[in-house]
């Protein structure tokens, strides 16, 4: 860790952090064996969880959110334009309708 009198430096911090020793007394053989036995005993549930994780993570991506916002804005603009076009078609129909009806 950086000492209080020196400016905080990321490279120095990470260099010191890399020296931190991992616990040497970890032995998980029994726990792993028990977990494997437990998983083998129960039916496999929710294999889609990994996929769900990926999708949720993707949902947080800025580029995807920006893309969806653009699509929504485009859809809204299209709808608005669509309303105008329908309105114009209605007017045209009101002009053409009587003559078409006579055919």
């Amino acid at each position, binding site marked *: 860790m950086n000492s209080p009198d020196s400016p905080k430096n990321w490279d120095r911090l990470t260099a*010191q*952090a890399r*020296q*931190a020793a*991992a616990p040497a007394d970890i*032995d998980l053989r029994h726990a*792993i064996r028990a977990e*494997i036995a437990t998983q083998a005993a129960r039916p496999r549930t929710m294999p889609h969880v990994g996929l769900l994780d990926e999708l949720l993570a993707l949902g947080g991506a800025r580029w995807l959110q920006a893309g969806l916002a653009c699509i929504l804005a485009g859809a809204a603009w299209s709808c608005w334009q669509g309303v105008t076009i329908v309105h114009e078609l209605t007017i045209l129909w009101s002009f053409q309708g009587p003559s078409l009806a006579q055919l």
Partner: protein
Amino acid sequence: MSASLIADPDLSLIRQAQAGDMEAFDQIVLRHQSTMTALLHRFVHTRADLEDLVQETFVKAWRGLPAWEPEKPFVHWLKRIAVRCGLEFYRRQQRSPLSRLAQPTADGRDPLDDLPADTLEADQQRGALGEAQFLLSHLQAEDRALLTLLHLEQMPLAEIAQHFGWTRINAKVKAFRARQRLKTLLKRHGYELT
């Protein structure tokens, strides 16, 4: 038989484990758990989380053993599972507001892990790791995992790309963007990045 098949010291044990021999898998765990612990130790700051991650790695390895190809070094395959477990852990943590990292205390001791360090130096090193992990915890899960491997594990970018299934170019772009975000973050916390 290729040279890699002969060279891999785990091959006979893996073959036995693939056939369902748990004793053989125990031996594999015994051989590699310290390597996986050392790698995953960079990702988490409490012993309980570390044990969970190491366990998750080996359970996934057991399930994935039938798919292991002898052409690929076993340790490399195991590391890939481990770093992906690390990334998944970060994603889970990101979704859970209760599991945000707490800022390390001024004396360098992590408030969530009160195990006493052996020496003052070890205490400072653990404090530095906790502080680096705390700073990285402000980033998105993918950036956090990438920078953990780059800065704390000093894993080459090409290897990180292989583990996460990215192309080298994509990995370079991701690393560049992650570093930019880290720079902003460090500036906010009063750090300089040389």
